[in-house]
């Protein structure tokens, strides 16, 4: 493959699908994309935590993007994929339905997330790219990271 020529006005993103929607994440934030072998559940954790996975000797926390974006359609995906990012020194595996291409998107096609979208979903999306093949929602990995480090940290009390 020839080197991708970039200029200031474009970004390279990796795309993936959750349900029918296409999402994107800046390619430099992704460490790797892998299939998923076994997920070891974490009892009592939030619903969006699928569990832990063994990523070649390192432990990654698997998050369900379906849960984040409220896809409750209970479709059992036999071949989910994992987009692995490093956040705060820890590994996060975002479990998605299908991984698409790595594409170059024009900065000029970027727009803010429409305000009518449900707030709970809106907050995870930085903005929307309008591409020829439809909309691309750019995932805000920092917000997801924040979700993973609740303030109060160890002092927070569990309601039991």
């Amino acid at each position, binding site marked *: 493959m020839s080197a991708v020529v970039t200029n200031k006005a474009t970004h390279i993103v990796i795309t993936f699908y959750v349900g029918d929607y296409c999402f994107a994440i800046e390619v430099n934030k992704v460490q790797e994309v892998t299939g998923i072998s*076994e997920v*070891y*559940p*974490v*009892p*009592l*954790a*939030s619903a969006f*935590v699928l*569990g*832990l*996975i*063994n990523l*070649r*000797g*390192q*432990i990654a*926390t698997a998050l369900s993007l379906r849960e984040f974006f409220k896809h409750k359609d209970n479709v059992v995906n036999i071949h989910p994929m994992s987009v692995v990012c490093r*956040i*705060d020194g*820890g590994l*996060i595996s975002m479990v998605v339905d299908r991984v698409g291409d790595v594409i170059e998107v024009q900065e000029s096609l970027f727009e803010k997330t429409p305000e009518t979208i449900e707030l709970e979903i809106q907050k995870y999306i930085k903005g929307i790219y309008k591409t020829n093949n439809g909309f691309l929602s750019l995932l805000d990995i920092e917000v997801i990271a924040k*979700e*993973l*480090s*609740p303030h*109060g*940290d*160890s002092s*927070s009390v*569990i309601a*039991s």
Partner: protein
Amino acid sequence: MAEAEEICDQFIKNLTAYELDPSKEIFDELYRLMHSLKGSAYLFSFKNLGDKAHHLESYLEGFRHQSNGPSQSEIGKLFSDFKVIEIELQSLHPNFKPTGRPEVHSIAQNVSQEHQSSPEPTSINIVDKSKQSQDETNSSIRVSVNLLDNLMTLMGEMVLVRNQVIQLSNRSEDAHLQSLSKKLNVVTSEIQNEMMKTRLQPIGTVINKFQRVVRDLAQDLGKGIQLQIQGADTELDKSLLEAIKDPLTHIVRNSCDHGIESPQDRISAGKPRDGHITIRAYHEGGQVVIEVGDDGKGLHKERLISKAIEKGIISRGDQDKLSESDVFNLIFAPGFSTAQQVTNVSGRGVGMDVVRTNIEKIGGTIDLQSRTGHGTTIKLKIPLTLAIIPALIVQCGSEHFAIPQSKLEELVRVEQTNEENRVEILHGSPVFKLRGQILPLVDLSKVLKRNSNTNYDRGVINIAVVKSEETSFGIVFDAIQDTADIVVKPLNRLLKSLQIYSGATILGDGSVILILDILGVSKVARIGMNRNDYTNHDDKEDKLLADIQDYLLVGLASPTKHAFILNSVFRLEEFNTDQIEQCGNLSLVRYRDATLPIIDLNLILFGEKSKFDQLKTLVIVVRKKDKLYGLMVDTIVDTLSTDVEMETQPIKQKGLFGSLNLPDELIALIDPFEIINLAYPDQIQEPVNKPEVAQLQAVHRENVFVNNESKRILLAEDTVFFRKAIKNVLEKAGYQVITANDGHQALEIMIKEYKSISLLVSDIEMPKMNGFQLAEHLKNNPQLNLIPRMAISSRADSGFLKKGLESGFDMYLEKLNQDVLLNAVEKLMHLKREAA
């Protein structure tokens, strides 16, 4: 940068050594160190630092040519000048290397080894330390921590592969493969061991800094303090070193501030003028022990106790029960500080409790010994490394969890077929009697909200007895899987905040398991909360949730203690015995503009009259209907809060509800209403009904068990005791019972589940919404109105009865006669109301 820090460390060390022993060699070393610091600083164009080092170097040079070296005060100036350099160095820090420094370095290690207080060089060396000599400068290299961490991870991978190869070779017939895999096994284990060592660092890197801390403090406080360090070469995992740094600093500062007395005090106590603080570090039984001892005034036991009482940490009655070490350990209790006034040295609100918490967080323990007038020693025990811990791997449902061995006290296997000692269910929670002590049990599958249910009826129960803080408890799991040395991997903060896991690990077969945080488990399971939880919870709410009932314990002419339900007690009164007047067969006392009939409990319960031989008579006042009655008791013992359930006696005792079987004694529970009925049979209240109810015929009792399967009764009752008691009675008769704590809750349940409810039984006096309001609500709803309603209350005077029927109850009963209740329930079950 790292080099500069090392130079600083050594400079300080040498300077301290020089202060005690002003020899020419040490001074030359100081000069040389400052010279190389200057050189390095300029080399990396840290001009400020270089200039300052240069200045200090010139200052030192002046002394170099004198015969008698610097005086004490001049050494003092050296310390303060050097501080400037250190500050300069720290300000450069973030720009350059914010996360620690490389572990291995190659500075010439020419420290004056002969001097007792100069510790080992402050470096990590991959080569064997004992062989190290001054000229061995080239045998160590700098390696970044990241590289080491990566190597560790890869090492772990290698171990996994090794395990798989061994499994394969065990199945194979090939002798060659087998011998190769054996070799692989040995080599891998060795590499693993060596790799682990690379993370170890001598404790001197932390504790040598205290020379400076102590010196500065001593000056500030106007005290003479000598610090002695022993065993600075004891090695400890780097991450642990970081973790103990602050607690240790706190302890040392405390010793300086509170421990060592002022010179005058010391001299008048007959001690040498200068105080001594000793830090000793050594290995012991797979742990590193750090002792910080001082020869100061020691802890003052009485003052500790009075302080603890003042702060509400212990109660006045507890003080005699405390052993000496208990008393000393009080200083680790939250909210405790003996410093009379806050100095800038200690007493800034960060108490010893934080020290203890931090030490326990890394799996260590802390212990304190003290002799008044002779000093205090604090002993820390720290695990060698956090990274690898021995653990027990247990199975719970389909999942596995690791329990750190350090928290494990013992494993117990209980055969449930053994009638004498088995796990029993006490109010819904399993408990086990271990050597005569009740051991609270935490069912792992329940705490983790797993679906699997432990079967307590038969089979074998596995219990891991663990210790968290002061409390021991048992964790019930399904099976023991294995013991293993596990490599602890951190969890992200979200999962850490669940409190129940301290980390995760990857097992030999590549599977990931979670490591249980015992302290967290106990918190989630609410074990030991009573003692440690000082926050102000809504007490009443908590009691409701925990199903705890308050009782009033009284003494009667019987060795058994008797108890009243506290809610049924109207007042406690003490009358002069001569106030009690006899009127026919009645004993009466004038009380609140009326007469209070006095009932002799001893007479009714045991058939023997009480002797009125004392000046005062204790009376428990109870309200029944609109009248007050006084029940005479011998003594009032105490109150009791417990969630122990009442047991009804097989043969009904007159005047008693039943008994409370506490672990150490049995308490008889008095039914004050029945007592009153027994004393005044003519006052018994018959159930009051609406006319249509009166026409219903009670079904014959024998049919009850067949018919009641599908009958659900909603019981609204705020008093825990009655809620349980009535529920018991109804359930024994075969009904299903759901309960509500107040009228409001009852209404909510009604609205949600009215289709499955056949009868409402409700108390009248309840919080949030009383029985009358509840009945009104139900009456006005066409759907809910179909369900028959029964009121049951101790307030059964005529006004209440009338209002009850008006508000829509079909029947009004007085608490609490089983047979009357069951009859009434059966009657009402047949009440069919036409939909309005």
